[in-house]
């Protein structure tokens, strides 16, 4: 069982995301006194009120404009020893890149919605990204209950509206929780103002979200080949499964079977290694081994030059352009040879597939790589099921998942 959770916190500008995390950290005693003193000081000068959001929004620009620019990660440990890592992702549309970056580290998500507001485009975009990344475990928090006198009817009304919206775009959520982030209601302590609410507090909902690590098939992308004591060693990180000394493995795309002669670790003798360890492997034949090859055991992934995928465009993409396909340590030049369909990320409406692949579009495409690459279908968190495309500038212009 994993003993920590990475949680992306998303929502519109002004929904109170940073305040929610700040208050949560404060109530669990995760904030240093010095930081609190500093915030008191700065808050007084800027707004007059103690702003929990400043615990996360630390750039001058962020505090003055009350807008989160850059993803922040904040650590929190509860009395029971559980670790939460909150990833505060920006809500502004120009900063979608930061949202994508932050969300890619998440095991689950909290969506913060102002109980009095409607669902904005921004929230739709966020949800589309979560759906795209296959983050299924979502907790919806209706915030600012203090501004509606903790009224149950307002909560129920908004809950209904949002549930309907989730249904329409095909995303499920696990909990709906009414909170006041500013006052701390239903974060750690059950609210005394909302006795009508019989559900879980946020911390209870999070505590119920820990799960075991997934995937058991052995996958080891070769990162580099080192010469150690006159012996060649393939180094890398086991992305799933385990490996034993003496076992037979297959190297893809070489399609060659070899035996594990030795597992190599610094100052340690090991006969067995498992994910997510970074190790060295010595095979009985090290000839022809190089970065980008994948060492596997049964249930082999597929090796092909043609890849069907769903991509999220970070920048405008020109299908004519030569791109760089990267999947873990694999790299190849590549081209998009077919665009089957394009959606707009906010409306989730289909565009004409002849249209350009614009920034923040999602598209189903076929990619042709120069050399054969080893991939498998995306199932949530498997590394061989996801990739990035880079342009000439070696900037990531799209992220993709294999379908």
């Amino acid at each position, binding site marked *: *069982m994993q*003993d*920590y959770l990475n949680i992306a916190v998303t929502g519109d500008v002004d929904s109170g995301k940073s305040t929610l995390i700040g208050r949560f950290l404060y109530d669990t*005693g995760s*904030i*240093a*006194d*010095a*930081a609190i003193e*500093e915030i008191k*000081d*700065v808050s007084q000068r800027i707004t007059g009120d103690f702003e929990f959001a400043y*615990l*996360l929004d*630390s*750039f*001058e*620009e962020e505090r003055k404009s009350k807008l989160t*620019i*850059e*993803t*922040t*990660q*904040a*650590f929190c440990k509860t009395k029971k020893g559980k*670790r939460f890592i909150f990833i505060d992702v920006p809500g502004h549309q120009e900063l979608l*890149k*930061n949202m*994508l*970056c932050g969300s*890619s*580290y998440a095991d689950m998500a909290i969506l913060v919605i102002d109980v009095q507001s409607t669902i904005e485009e921004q929230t739709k975009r966020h949800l589309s990204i979560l759906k795209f990344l296959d983050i299924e475990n979502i907790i919806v928090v209706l915030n600012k209950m203090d501004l509606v006198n903790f009224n149950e009817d307002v909560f129920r009304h908004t809950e209904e509206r949002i549930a309907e919206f989730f249904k329409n775009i095909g995303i499920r959520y696990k909990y709906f929780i009414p909170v006041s982030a500013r006052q701390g209601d239903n974060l750690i302590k059950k609210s005394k103002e909302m006795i009508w609410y019989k559900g879980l507090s946020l911390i209870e909902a999070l505590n119920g979200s820990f799960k075991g690590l997934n995937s058991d098939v052995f996958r080891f992308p070769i*990162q*580099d080949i*080192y010469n*150690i004591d006159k012996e060649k*060693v393939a*180094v*890398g*990180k086991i992305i799933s499964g385990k490996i034993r000394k003496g076992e037979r493995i297959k190297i893809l795309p070489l399609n060659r079977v070899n035996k594990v002669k030795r597992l*190599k*670790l*610094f*100052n340690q003798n090991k006969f067995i290694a498992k994910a*997510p*360890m*970074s190790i*060295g492997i010595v095979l009985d034949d090290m000839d022809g081994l190089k*970065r980008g090859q994948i060492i596997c055991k049964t249930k082999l992934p597929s090796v092909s030059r043609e890849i069907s995928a769903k991509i999220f465009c*970070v920048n405008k993409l020109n299908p004519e352009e030569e791109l760089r396909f*990267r999947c*873990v340590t694999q790299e190849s030049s590549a081209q998009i040879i077919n665009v089957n369909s394009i959606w707009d990320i906010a409306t989730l409406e289909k565009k004409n597939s002849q249209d350009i692949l614009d920034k923040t579009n999602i598209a189903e495409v076929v990619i042709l790589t120069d050399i054969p690459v080893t991939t498998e279908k995306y199932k949530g968190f498997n*590394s061989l099921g*996801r990739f*990035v495309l880079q342009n000439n*500038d*070696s*900037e*990531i212009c799209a*992220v993709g998942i294999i379908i």
Partner: protein
Amino acid sequence: MSDYSYLDELESRSVYIIREAYWKYKNKLVILWSMGKDSTTLVHLARKAFFGKVPIPVIHIDTTFKFKQIYEFRDKYVKCWKLNLIITKNDMALKKDMSPKKGRFNCCTALKTEALKQVIEKYRLRALLVAIRRDEHSIRAKERYFSLRDKEFKWDYQNQPLEMWSEYYNTKEESGTHIRIHPLLHWSEIDIWRYIKKEKLPSVNLYFAKKRRRYRSIGCECCCQPIESSANSIDRIIEEIQNSRVSERSGRAQDKEKEYMMQKLRSLGYM
């Protein structure tokens, strides 16, 4: 037990990043080592990544104001771990008597940031491995694993590149720029101490309490204040951090001299 599996995962992610950095930058890559607990952990992780023989030079930016225990520690473990050490100083500024008396901001900028600039130029370095962590300061919490600095050393924090799934990092660079690589970004202070304990790593004795005082963060003697503490062993430090709400860098003068000073120092190229 569960703690240890957690530490294993932190370690593995860092080792992966160090190997990615070496694969990409080979002999244009160095490790910044201040002999503090974090950068010593980083050096140890590099030893793990390369099975005991670190092929990456280790740089000490020497302000000449460090504690004597720090210099002793450096000289001992350079030999012990067979490191390729490069010591660098901003001689020009030192000749002109640069010290915190001329203002902490100016001193940090001249003796750390400028000294770093000089060594980068001298060896035409393209990338640095730096042991900063997200939980140290809320500004550092916004960093990427691979973070570009431009010719003037500026950090364009409003337009940081995309990083995905702790597997894909930005390696875009132009001449004159360099990349800061942060393999320990995801570690917290307590993780570091637990790891030091697990791996039986040495640490400068300033971290341990003497006469009810110890340093929680070490650097230049003139700008570090000890905290009140009776933690004279790693176990007691871990216990202390668990129960404390005083921030780690509270004894470091440059963090709190002025509002947003850390942001300003960092935007000029400070670590």
